[in-house]
């Protein structure tokens, strides 16, 4: 945190559950999608958010943007608490915070041409004249690698990657202060990925844009973020410098994750996680990861580890073993670095 200025975004202790009912008469059960997350994003900084599928990343993204109200916890944007969704203050904030959706097809209105949809934030926040808007849209589209003739296309007649770029363009068109990207590049080929990642870093530098970058692509995360947080079952289990986290993962889950990164042209050995995948409707006691953890001990089964800086190098991690509070049950699997 730079001295004097508050963080752009600060989330404290966010939690969110969904009720699901099985059948008409089924008993409602709570699914804890996010279970106590705190994070900060400074101006000009990118926080990468990685983690297992279904661990609550998209939900976190929605919560920090105030699209959904958290059950508990609070979001502070630019020093002020997030106004309730739907209010004028909330709506005004939107020009400063934007989101790139995970599923672009669903996030686009199939009745409107993409050009119109990209221009929409400008229309909504009455930015510029009609001509300026048109110009701006053309510029953004070019920046994300869309061609001028795509302006009049409807979402369903675009390819997956083109749609994704349309969503990115829409999010960038207002030059937001905060950008939350939920899998922004998953459908892009590497060349366009490069284009988009370069674009994002440029904007970040130029506009001091803060970014929450949710992705499964650890290369991209490393490329773009200053810090990375690893989530597991609704909580952050490790946070730190991307290189450090990716090369010397402290948490056993991170270790498994890093080992699974595929490398073009090589076939590598990796840690395949054993045991059942985690179920947010039925959270294990103690450390949520312990049923699948190769090094879990008795403590892990009963005591929930806290996310705190490790004494050795100050890495924030939530693991009894990493903190040396418990001895590993077995020697950790050999992790090769690359």
């Amino acid at each position, binding site marked *: 945190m730079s001295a004097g200025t508050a963080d752009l975004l600060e989330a404290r202790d966010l939690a*969110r*559950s*969904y*009720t*699901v*009912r099985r059948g*008409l008469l089924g008993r*409602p059960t*709570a699914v804890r999608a996010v279970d106590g997350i705190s994070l900060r994003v400074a101006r000009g900084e990118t926080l990468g958010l990685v983690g297992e599928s279904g661990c609550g990343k998209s939900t976190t993204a929605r919560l920090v943007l105030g699209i*959904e*109200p958290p*059950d*508990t916890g609070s979001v502070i944007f630019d020093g002020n608490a997030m106004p309730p969704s739907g209010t004028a203050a909330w709506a005004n904030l939107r020009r400063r915070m934007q989101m790139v959706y995970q599923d672009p*097809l669903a996030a686009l209105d199939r009745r409107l041409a993409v050009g119109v949809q990209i221009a929409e934030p400008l229309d909504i926040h009455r930015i510029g004249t009609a001509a300026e808007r048109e110009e701006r849209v053309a510029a953004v589209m070019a920046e994300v690698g869309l061609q001028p003739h795509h302006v009049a296309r409807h979402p*369903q007649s675009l390819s997956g990657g083109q749609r994704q770029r349309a969503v990115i363009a829409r999010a960038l068109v207002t030059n937001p202060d905060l950008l939350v990207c939920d899998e922004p590049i998953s459908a892009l080929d590497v060349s366009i990925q490069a284009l988009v990642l370069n674009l994002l870093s440029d904007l970040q530098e130029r506009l001091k844009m803060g970014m929450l970058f949710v992705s499964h692509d650890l290369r991209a995360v490393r490329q773009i973020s200053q810090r990375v947080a690893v989530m597991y079952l609704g909580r952050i289990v490790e946070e730190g410098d991307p290189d450090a986290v990716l090369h010397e993962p402290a948490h056993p889950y991170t270790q498994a994750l890093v080992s699974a990164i595929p490398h073009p042209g090589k076939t590598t050995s990796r840690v395949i996680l054993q045991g059942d995948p985690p179920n947010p409707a039925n959270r294990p006691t103690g450390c949520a990861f312990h049923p699948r953890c190769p090094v879990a001990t008795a403590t892990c089964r009963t005591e929930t580890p806290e996310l705190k800086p490790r004494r050795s190098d100050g890495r924030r991690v939530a693991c009894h073993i990493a903190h040396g509070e418990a001895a590993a049950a077995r020697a950790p699997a050999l992790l090769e670095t690359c």
Partner: protein
Amino acid sequence: MLHYLLSRLLRAAVSIIMVVTFVFVVLRMSGDPAMVIMGADAPPEAIDAFRKSWGLDQPLWVQYFSFFEAIFSGELGRSMRDGRDAMAVVLERVPSTLALTVPAFLVNLIVGVPAGVYAALHRNSLIDRCVMVMAVTGFAVPSFILAMLLVLILSVNLGWLPSAGQDSWLNAILPIATMGFGGAALLARFTRSAMLEVLGQPYIRTASAKGLPWSAVVWRHALQNAAIPTITIIGFMLGGLVAGAVVVESVFSWPGVGRLLVISVANRDLAIVQAIVLMIAITMVAANMIVDVLYGLVDPRMHGQARPARR
């Protein structure tokens, strides 16, 4: 669940009170029932006496409150015309109305929905055009013209079916056909439009890619997603089941609720009108509940909107 039911019942009560009040005010303030029922030649004393005996000489609000008082004691009042218990009069008519409306409703469903689906699947084909022209014509031809034409052809000229009355089930065929035609047309058009809306969705492609035969894709996947407008219309149809159809009942001299309503409104026979309106309101409310449950069934996203579980 309980909360849902309670709010539903509260709303139903509010609507019903509004309906009853409205009908009361309208009927009371648009023509003197004494005059209407006794006729133009009745001596003024008779009219005064009539007014007095039905409490029509009281101020409106007194009448209103005593009317509600009576309702809460389960007494809907008596017909001003012949002194019969209003509910009994209405209930006596309901079966004969249902004898027309229920089959007509089924005809609507059985003909209308498939016709709409079919037309959607063959968009712009000759068949689509024919179905839709039929549907529009069926809807735009005044029902008494349709009824009269059916009667002229099938009863008067061919002598196959009776033209009016209520002597056997044969009498019901023509009125049901008349009513069925218009309603089916309505459903067909809504269904077609909603189907077209859905057929371009990616999940329809998924279903096809699974290898489902096209008919199964349509019936199992598309129809349910397209169902909301159709269900809404079906809800209105369900709600209208007890109200009958004025024109058709008149043309076929079918003594149903619709005609009773017209006669009773014309006579300002409040108790009967209220009894009918109450029945209609209750069916409407019931139909709405059914519709809401159906909404939830066809589109799980409409159910409760994944309300957060607050701890």
